[in-house]
């Protein structure tokens, strides 16, 4: 077998998942729906699924004020910027942190699974997080950006 560098592969999966998250969050601003509203919800004709009263908090942050989709978009954009990476981020140590990526991707999974459009983004982000976890377990480390080599205390 060839030697797969897991964090380089994870980068590609994370970018794809994050692009999906941004796109899903964008559409969730216009078509607002709590994904888990079928749990104890009632189907009204017309009107669609009405979430249970216990899910009121999710209705507030997804349907009334779409905070969750906005967070998903911002997080997704940050992930893209971090992964590409954005030139300004290159000089920071977080650019090379695999652990940070795992945490952010798991958070992205959690955020995107809450709203209707985000389920694929959630699955893909989870896969990306698993790939980064594999990289972390194998003890891979990301190369220092060329311009930072030899600098003290830098990335």
């Amino acid at each position, binding site marked *: 077998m*060839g030697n*797969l560098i897991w964090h380089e*592969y994870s980068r590609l999966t994370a970018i794809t998942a994050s692009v999906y998250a941004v*796109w899903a969050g964008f*559409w969730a601003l216009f078509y607002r*729906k709590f994904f888990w509203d*079928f749990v104890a919800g009632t189907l009204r004709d017309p*009107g669609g*699924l009405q979430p249970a009263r216990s899910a009121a908090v999710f209705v507030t942050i997804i349907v009334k004020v779409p905070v969750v989709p906005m967070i998903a978009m911002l997080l997704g954009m940050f992930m893209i910027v971090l992964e590409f990476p954005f030139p300004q981020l290159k000089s920071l140590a977080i650019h090379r942190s695999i652990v940070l990526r795992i945490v952010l991707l798991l958070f992205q999974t959690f955020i995107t699974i809450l709203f209707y459009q985000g389920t694929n983004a959630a699955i893909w982000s989870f896969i990306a997080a698993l790939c980064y976890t594999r990289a972390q377990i194998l003890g891979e480390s990301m190369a220092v950006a060329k311009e930072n080599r030899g600098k003290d205390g830098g990335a």
Partner: protein
Amino acid sequence: MLRNIIRVVRPKMTWLFPADENIWFHRQVAYSMAFWAMVHTTAHYVNFINVERTQIRKQTAQEIHYTQPGGITGHFMLLMMFLMYTTAHHKIRKQCFEAFWYTHHLAFFFMLGLYTHATGCFLEVYHLARDNLFRRARLQGISWQEGNRLSKVLFIPVVQWSFALSAQLKYTAGQWLFLQVPELSGWQWHPFTITSAPEDPYVSIHIRQVGDWTRALGERLVPSISSCSNDPGSDEGAEKDQKIGGRGDFVELDSSANTTPFPLRWYRCHPIRIDPQNIWYRQRKGTLGTLRRVEFFWVCRDAPSFGWFQSLLQEVEAAQADPNFLRINIYLTQKIHEDMLWNIAVNDAGAEYDPLTLLRSRTMFGRPDWMTIYGQMRQAIEGGQYIPGSTSQLKTKVGTYFCGPGVLGNAIKEATVANCSSTVEFTFAKEHF
């Protein structure tokens, strides 16, 4: 990629789609699929939420997405595309080809998903026809022939393997074959350019030992070499090559025909390039067509790397009646030691043959400047010095056939594009594996 079908279709259908650049075309199709999958999926996410709200069908959006065939297959296809596209990145393919190769076989399940995605859709007929074609091509692709004997091994430690398959194999210049060694892996087929010419009585390929598969192949060949008797001609070859490499690591061996250490399977693939040996044969037969001149460029890092090709080039060069027909340009890009520099300086001056390659053509050092090379060639053609008798009314076509790393290919392509003029047309073709 249905290579066998491409092989048949290629000469006939190039006007319709870029069959010569079929891998490029494959990628363009993939990009367009990704785009339209995005449009399609986005539209369905809007459309299902509207179905739920209006209750035009008494269903929830989640039911349509996750319990009905269309929705389920759609999501699975997206997941498969996610895995296939991410592993197909050139970085991943280079690191771990298996990760790409096996994941890409999800295409089979992708197709299954596609038939059932829109049940009752007329597209199915087309898809079924295509899948049938796909499966038949794949099965026929494994129309390997067993029992080929290894008849010759050219041995340079850790650098190259060449072995001849003594089989009646019909092929044209520049074709490649896929090799499978079941003992190493029952699944892996490795492509190699056929380095022999169709007129040769044997089939040979050169294998650089760079990956685990090629190394394992090398290890398997070593015992067979030690058990073989030495070919009387090999001493001469070894001596000759000692001069090139500066080390006595070039041994040519002939094994008797029935010492194949393991079975090999292979099948042919389509042609892409012109190689000097084939030109030589065609020159002898007088079937060159409109081909007037050939410039052969070989760029390599160090002298031992072209050891295995040297004897062939020497033969071709020696056979040239017209010194202008074939020009061999060899470039050494390695940093040169001072010792070597003096050695060359002492031996080169006044010698008939180049001290490094033993060819009449001189070796050049450093990287070739393609812009200048192509610019000069264009000027020479336009000035009528390059091809005697050509006039400016006729358009001269200069084809470049490239095999090598992508970065170098890009530089050459840039030079070919930049130097096109109204009278000289430069074309560029790259060998893809």
